[in-house]
């Protein structure tokens, strides 16, 4: 067994170039993009927290619907379709989603999904279109979607504390903090 690493070194062959380029870089830049902006991170976590508060079926409808609608926003951005007020829209998403979590609002599922979908378009439009030169579009897209889904999952995981009384208070406090941060983002976007 000890000879195995040596065997691997002996078996080294020249690298053979092929046409695929920028896969790893594309994936990691896509993965890093959603977590590089606090406004996006807080809104995604808020979606997960709200889903956990609402329980089934919202807990899975929101994470299924959000990536699709967000990708639609990115698709519009890639086609050059302008979307007015993107940055204020993202800030507003943090405010409203934070408020929903803070007040533990329970609208009908359709309205909750519509609200989340509306903001998903803004997030997709601004974040889904920034492919660095030389990176793979497919891998960037996969990384971007996976990171966004991971943030939802993190929010849902935190939201599982909702089953305890203190957990409910902590989640509502987190929602208030997200909403407050959203006010700051809005102020920054408008000045």
């Amino acid at each position: 067994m000890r000879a195995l690493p040596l065997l691997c070194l002996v078996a080294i062959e020249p690298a053979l170039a092929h046409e695929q380029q920028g896969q790893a870089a594309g994936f990691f830049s896509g993965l890093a993009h959603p977590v590089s902006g606090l406004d996006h991170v807080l809104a995604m976590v808020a979606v997960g927290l709200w889903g956990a508060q609402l329980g089934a079926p919202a807990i899975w409808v929101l994470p299924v619907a959000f990536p699709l609608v967000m990708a639609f926003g990115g698709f519009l951005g890639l086609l050059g379709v302008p979307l007015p007020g993107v940055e204020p829209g993202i800030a507003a998403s943090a405010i409203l989603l934070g408020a929903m979590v803070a007040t533990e609002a329970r609208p009908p599922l359709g309205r909750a999904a519509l609200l989340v979908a509306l903001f998903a378009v803004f997030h997709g439009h601004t974040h889904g279109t920034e492919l660095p030169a030389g990176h793979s579009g497919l891998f960037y897209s996969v990384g971007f979607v996976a990171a966004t889904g991971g943030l939802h999952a993190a929010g849902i995981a935190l939201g599982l504390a909702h089953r305890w009384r203190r957990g409910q208070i902590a989640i509502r406090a987190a929602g208030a903090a997200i909403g407050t941060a959203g006010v700051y983002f809005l102020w920054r976007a408008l000045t």
Partner: protein
Amino acid sequence: MRPGALPLAVLAAAWSGLWPAAAQAHLVNTGIGPVYDGIAHLFVSFEDLLPVVALALLSGLNGPAAGRRSIFTLPIAWLLGGLAGAQFPGAPLPVGPAALSLLILGVLVAADRRLAPNVVAALALALGRAHGWHSGVATAAAGLQTAGLMGTAAAAFGLTVLLAASVVGLTRPWTRIAVRVGGSWIAASGLLLFGWTLSGRT
């Protein structure tokens, strides 16, 4: 045929035969023969691999009958499409078939609507035809010929069998939801990739 099956079948047919563009070969040299090169080709070509994963998930969600049809239809269509692609490497090829495959199959997985086994088989046929053609062009360009193509089709068969069987066996509700979330992610990636393709930036 169930309501809604005809539009899906028409979509599958259109998907397999339209949209011209150039092929991009993803060549792999494992050093252990063309069959293994063909197998490796699938696993390094994400634009082929992800749609196969999506089809396997869809087949599994639609039960054993759909799974049985798709696991045989896909590799046969892949092989036949590949042979045709290898014969006519200069023929027009679909633009962004990967994006379209990811989008269509991902949405169907996310929606988790029950489809007739024949419709799933038609989707497998369309996927195999479209992506097999690309594989055929790529493997012919690499000089792998039929053996390499058989390796790719065999890899698609093995992957579909394993994944579809795993999904068919899922009984707890949350596991099925996890598969649907996976479908949503695949569809979202496909939609973004479609945007990249149309904007000419990928």
